[in-house]
Structure formats: structure tokens, C-alpha cells
């Protein structure tokens, strides 16, 4: 038989964050802790299906009038409109002026990809393969792959994390924006920056917006943690709404994986804000063409759950409460971890643990220290030193704090 056409296909390396979880699963040590993958966990270390989600799922299951027919290409209309409303605010001028559109997508990733594909085709002329795309350094590692696979050839980083001061490198960021070619695309984390947990302050966002406006840079927001970061939907959407109020046209890729706990239903929305309704309509018509060759139309279950929740005042209130429960637990774990490290006298400063926000914290641990944590202490975290605060519980806080102390003092 002739040699296979796939004989030369190389074995690809596993995606790091999933490999980490796989290794964690295989670890037989009773003390093991998984601070890797970004999913919420209860204080018992268990996944948590939001009570409001269980309620709505039951409602959907009991509704015999529902069927499994195709959704429209752009998705469930009630979902799209309400998802965008959550991002932009009830009183958003853009919504009032009918210049907002939504594309229901498969999670935040799907929204990013559809947005990226659209920009490559239509953003600045009809072929944007050479248009620079700027991604923060560091960022979620999949951002790079999304834009590469969408066809962009010139992907650059912008300064973001200052390791020495363990905070935002605002000066470097603004400098990169000043030097970026006009019309470059910038991927901005709306809140709860992944992986650093470090967000610009409102004043810093104002400076960023001013430069972007002057240099004609395009804001593509990634909003995966609205509500989950501070506990307040409005607070976590401040940056996106500020940009809208400053007259920007923008994209915002929304994920409902974390704030609704709907990880595996793949619920996302690409919110498009344009200058006027006509522009938005034409943009959506082209989005349809892109969606049609990617997945034809999106899955209905998750969108139904979110739409039902957002359109019922009672369920909406319940949801906000559930979200606050998650955000509060994360905030508690942050303060508990910090106070333990400070009590232990662990070398270095640890205020960044409580100053950072959202699911993740950039601990500042170096790769060798991380390796020590994994191999010797069976505590799994990313090589970058990123930990998922949700992996901490009242039961393992002491062990994790002591282990970090050991790693920092033993390994340089």
C-alpha cells in the first residue's frame, strides 16, 4: 500500500493548560491542588452549576412548546439583544441610536474568531492580512492562535505587565500605541486581565482611549468576566462603555462561560458598535457569510438559558446574586492567601494578590519555582506563575501558602 498522505503529520504539542489538568488528574497525592484551568470551584473544590441556571434548565425541559429547530445564522434574537445590553448598559446611547448588533457565537473564543475573520476581510480595505494586530504581553495564549488562523500575518505584542513592580506598565503600553501604525487593531481585556489579573484604572483607561482615538487604533475588547471580576456588572463593563461614550466603533467578544457557569454550552456574543444603523446592518450581513461557513448557525441550549434569565426581572436578580457569590469567594481567597503569606514572612511583597482582580493572579513565581510547586508539592499552576484563585479553598489555603513560601525561599 502506498505511504499515507498523513505520514508526515507531526504530533502537535498538547495545549498547556489542559495538559496541566490531565497531569493533575493522574496525580495520586492526597494533598494535590489544581490552580490551573480557569473554571470556578466552590469551597469544596467542586464545579458549581448556578442555582438560577438549574432553575431555568428545568423550565426549558418542562416547556413542551420548545423544539430543536435551527436558530437564525446570527443566533437567538433575544439572546443577542440582551447580551449586548448587558455589556453596554440599559441606557446605552448606542443601543438607543440603534447602532449595535450582536452575533451569537460559540463562547468567547468563537466571538473572537468571527470578529477576527471579519476584520481580516473588511476592516481597512478588503484585505487586512498585513494589518498589525496587537496583543498584550502576556495575554491568554489562544488570542495569538485566533488571529493567526484568521489570516493576520503581522501580530505584535504591546507592553502590559511590569514584572519588577508587579503591575501595569502603562508607560510602555501608551508608548506602543503611539508608535503603532495607524489603523492597527488592539485586543483589550475589558476587565480581569488574563493571566495577570491587573486592569487599568478608569483614569488609565481614559489615557488609553485618548491615544487610540488620536491614532485611529481599533478597539477589540475581550470580555470574559463581566460581573465575575468585581461582583458588579456595571463596574466590570466600565471600560467598554467609556469607549462607546467616546464615540469609538468597536467589537466586544463576550463570554458567558464564567459568569453564567455555562462553560460547555459555548455561549458567547460578538457585540458590534458602529457609527449608525446602516453600517451595522451591512456588517451583520457579512458576519452571516462568515458564520455560515464556520458553523452555519449556533447551538440553542445555552443561549436559551441566558436569554430566559436576562429577560425575567426575578431571574436576572437571582443571577446577579449568584455572580456575586462567585466573585465574593474569589475576593475572600485573595485576602486569605495574602494575609497568610505576609504572616509567614514570605520574601517579596504580596499586595498584588489582593490588588489584582478576577479569577487569576500572577504570583510572580518563576518557572523553577513553579516546577517545584508541581513536582514537590503537587500544586499545579501554569509555568507563567498564573494561579486560578478558584482552586483555593479554606481547606487548602494553609498548604498552598506554606508551599509558596517554601518555593520562594528554597528556589531562586
Amino acid at each position, binding site marked *: 500500500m502506498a505511504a499515507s498522505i498523513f505520514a508526515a503529520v507531526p504530533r502537535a504539542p498538547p495545549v498547556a493548560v489542559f495538559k496541566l489538568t490531565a497531569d493533575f488528574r493522574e496525580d495520586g497525592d492526597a494533598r494535590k491542588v489544581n490552580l490551573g484551568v480557569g473554571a470556578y470551584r466552590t469551597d469544596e473544590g467542586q464545579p458549581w452549576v448556578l442555582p438560577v441556571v438549574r432553575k431555568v434548565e428545568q423550565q426549558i*425541559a418542562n416547556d413542551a412548546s420548545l423544539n430543536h429547530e435551527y436558530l437564525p445564522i446570527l443566533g437567538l434574537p433575544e439572546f443577542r439583544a440582551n447580551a449586548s445590553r448587558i455589556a453596554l448598559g440599559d441606557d446605552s446611547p448606542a443601543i438607543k441610536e440603534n447602532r449595535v448588533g450582536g452575533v451569537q457565537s460559540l463562547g468567547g473564543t468563537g466571538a473572537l474568531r468571527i470578529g477576527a475573520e471579519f476584520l481580516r476581510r473588511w476592516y481597512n480595505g478588503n484585505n487586512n492580512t498585513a494589518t498589525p494586530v496587537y496583543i498584550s504581553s502576556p495575554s491568554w495564549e489562544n488570542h495569538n492562535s485566533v488571529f493567526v488562523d484568521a489570516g493576520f500575518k503581522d501580530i505584535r505584542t504591546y507592553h502590559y505587565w511590569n514584572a519588577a513592580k508587579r503591575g501595569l506598565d502603562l508607560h510602555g503600553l501608551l508608548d506602543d500605541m503611539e508608535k503603532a501604525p495607524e489603523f492597527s487593531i488592539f485586543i483589550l481585556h475589558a476587565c480581569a486581565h488574563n493571566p495577570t489579573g491587573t486592569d487599568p484604572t478608569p483614569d488609565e483607561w481614559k489615557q488609553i482611549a485618548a491615544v487610540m482615538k488620536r491614532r485611529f487604533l481599533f478597539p477589540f475588547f475581550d470580555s470574559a468576566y463581566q460581573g465575575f471580576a468585581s461582583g458588579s456588572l456595571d463596574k466590570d463593563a466600565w471600560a467598554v462603555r467609556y469607549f462607546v461614550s467616546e464615540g469609538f466603533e468597536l467589537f466586544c467578544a463576550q463570554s458567558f462561560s464564567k459568569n453564567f457557569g455555562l462553560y460547555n454550552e459555548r455561549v458567547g456574543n460578538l457585540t458590534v458598535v458602529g457609527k449608525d444603523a446602516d453600517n451595522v446592518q451591512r456588517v451583520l450581513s457579512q458576519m452571516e457569510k462568515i458564520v455560515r461557513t464556520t458553523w452555519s448557525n449556533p447551538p440553542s441550549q445555552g443561549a436559551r438559558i441566558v436569554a430566559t434569565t436576562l429577560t425575567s426581572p426575578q431571574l436576572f436578580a437571582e443571577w446577579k446574586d449568584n455572580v456575586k457569590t462567585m466573585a465574593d469567594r474569589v475576593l475572600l481567597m485573595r485576602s486569605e492567601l495574602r494575609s497568610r503569606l505576609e504572616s509567614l514572612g514570605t520574601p517579596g511583597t504580596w499586595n498584588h494578590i489582593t490588588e489584582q482582580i478576577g479569577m487569576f493572579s500572577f504570583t510572580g513565581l518563576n518557572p523553577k519555582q513553579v516546577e517545584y510547586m508541581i513536582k514537590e508539592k503537587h500544586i499545579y499552576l501554569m509555568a507563567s506563575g498564573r494561579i486560578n484563585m478558584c482552586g483555593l479553598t479554606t481547606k487548602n489555603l494553609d498548604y498552598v501558602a506554606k508551599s509558596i513560601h517554601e518555593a520562594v525561599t528554597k528556589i531562586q
Partner: protein
Amino acid sequence: SSWWSHVEMGPPDPILGVTEAFKRDTNSKKMNLGVGAYRDDNGKPYVLNCVRKAEAQIASKKMDKEYLPIAGLADFTRASAELALGENSEAFKSGRYVTVQGISGTGSLRIGANFLQRFFKSSRDVYLPKPSWGNHTPIFRDAGLQLQSYRYYDPKTCSLDFSGAMDDISKIPEKSIILLHACAHNPTGVDPRQEQWKELAAAVKKRNLLVYFDMAYQGFASGDINRDAWAVRHFIEQGINILLAQSYAKNMGLYGERVGAFTVICSDAEEAKRVESQLKILIRPMYSNPPINGARIASLILNSPDLRKEWLVEVKSMADRIIGMRTQLVSNLKKEGSSHNWQHITDQIGMFCFTGLKPEQVERLTKEFSIYMTKDGRISVAGVTSGNVGYLAHAIHQVTK
């Protein structure tokens, strides 16, 4: 000014346009024969009983919502491969295949197209049958491949142009990619007979072509899942390592849940692992991992003996209703006194039927009788019921006599 001033309005979708016009029509006798979804004999969407049962079981288990692996629900992908290949398949038993969950048929096709673009360096050309599903062309094009065609449908006989197909295939450059509809060809409803499939297999083997099967109607076409998968299985048995896209939209009525699978038959299990690793690298920047709801339903049905049995009965009943409507349409046309040969209506198989009607006749059907179909004369037999088949026959006869 706006970033989007130069963005053109996308051309309206021809099939959606049919449905839009249908909705606006106030004629009580109107018929929508554009719809690509099954309807029961009352013209209503049909949720399978086995699906309802599976859903109830799933709801009672109160499972979590954690991310699926990138390749999807393992119980589903394994069962999906087994359904297509057959439990006795050597390829299945030896594990020399990889199956990943895809976003229904479209998503599965697209994963394969992207994979070919990245790893199949022998050719950029995908040969589609003429005609093919309208979305095949943009899917492969957006993946970065080029489209060619081979003769397939003979409008003179409303059946397969077998000699034309064989002739064209014999001339396709070696190592090109050829797409075949496993059963219930969309849009024509024209499938090769088994003897013809045997010759097609020999022909593609001779030209050393890479075969990509699109199977969106297994079970839905003839009512028999094994019969509908015969071509796929025959090709594999002939040593042709195919690519395969499956959809559960129609055969399980799971349209909006987006349940599908993409399979690559490999030389051995080791190669399958390498291919799988690369498929995951492609999927992650598209949507990270697939939606669980529909896959859980399909998995439960395929893997539970009782539910699977029930499913096989229900899918057969859907296929039988379609076949029954074809038969009734032809007999009603005869009763109307039509002298034309309408045998192709019952010879064709699956949801769609290429009636052979010309654009002017289609236009008259719409204007005079409020019967909506695409301009190429394609009707969705799913839109025909015992209540309206007489009206349809009458109308067709009026515009063709």
C-alpha cells in the same frame, strides 16, 4: 465616518428568501417546499420521542457544565464512528481512525477543510459533484482551497449522469480531493446504485484521489442506517482511507443543537493520534471546545440499547413518510392526467427532490398557487403532507401540461 462605509451588503441567501416570501403570503393553501428540516404529516417540526426521553434522563442526572475536551464528548465520538463504519469494521476495531466532535455537518466539514489546507500539500483542488449543496463551495473556499466539479446530475433524465461522472473522474489530476455525498444527495436526491458505487470506488482508487464523504442523512434516506452507510463502508473496505463529515441534524432532529462529527481513517492508531493532535490545534482557535447538550443526547441514544432501538424505529418512520409522500405525489400527478414521466420523484431519495421544473414553471407555482421552492426546481419533500399532496400535484400539472 465609519470603518465600515465600504462594507457591501451581503447578497441575500436564496433559500432564506424563499421562506421570507412564504411568510408574507396570506394564501391559506400556501406551501413551503424550501424548508430543509423534517416536518410531520401536520407540517409541524418533530421532536423525536427518543430525544425527549434522553433529555429527561440527562436533566435528572444534574450534571455539571465543565468544558468538554477539545475533541468533544468521547462517548459520542466513539459511537458516531461506530455508527458510520459499522461495529464489525476493521478500521473501527483496530482504532485506526480519529473522530472529533464538530458543529453539526457544517462545522465538521470545515474542520476537515481546514485540516486539508494545512496538511494536504498534494493539491488545493476539491472536486464537488455538479450540483452540490450550496454551502460546500464557500466552506472550502474560506478554508483556502479551490473548487472544481465533476458531472453528476443529468437534467435530461433527472437522474445520475453515471458515464459523465466516471469520465470526469478518470481525468481528475491524481491526489486531488473529491467530495461525495454518502446518501440522499443534496439537492438532487439522486444516489448511485451499489454497483455504481463499486465502480466509483475503483475509479477514485485508480486516480489516487483523497475521498471526503459528506453524510448528513444516515438512516434518514432509506430508513436503514446500514444501507445508507454502505458506500462509506465499501470505500474503506477497498483500502480507501476516507475523510467523513457526519450530521445528526436530520436523523435525530437535533438541528439547533449542532451535533456532528469529523473522522479521518488513518493507516494505524499511531497516525490517528498524530492527526487528532493537529485537529485539536485547529479547533482551539475556532471555538475552543464543542457544545455538550446535543452530543449528550446523541450519545445517550446511540449507547443505550432501548433508546437506540427506539431511534431506529423513529428514523425509519421519518424516512417512510418521505418515501410515502413521493409515491403519493406521483400517483396524484397520474390522477391529474399528467402525461409526463415522474418516475424520478420516486427514484430519488432523501429530503430533497429535483423535480425537473424550469424556472418559469417554478415562478408560476409561486405566483398562481403560493407554492414556494428554489428556482432550480428543488422541493423539500418534508414540506409535503397527506393534506396538501393533492394540491401540489394539481398545481404541478397545471404548469407542466
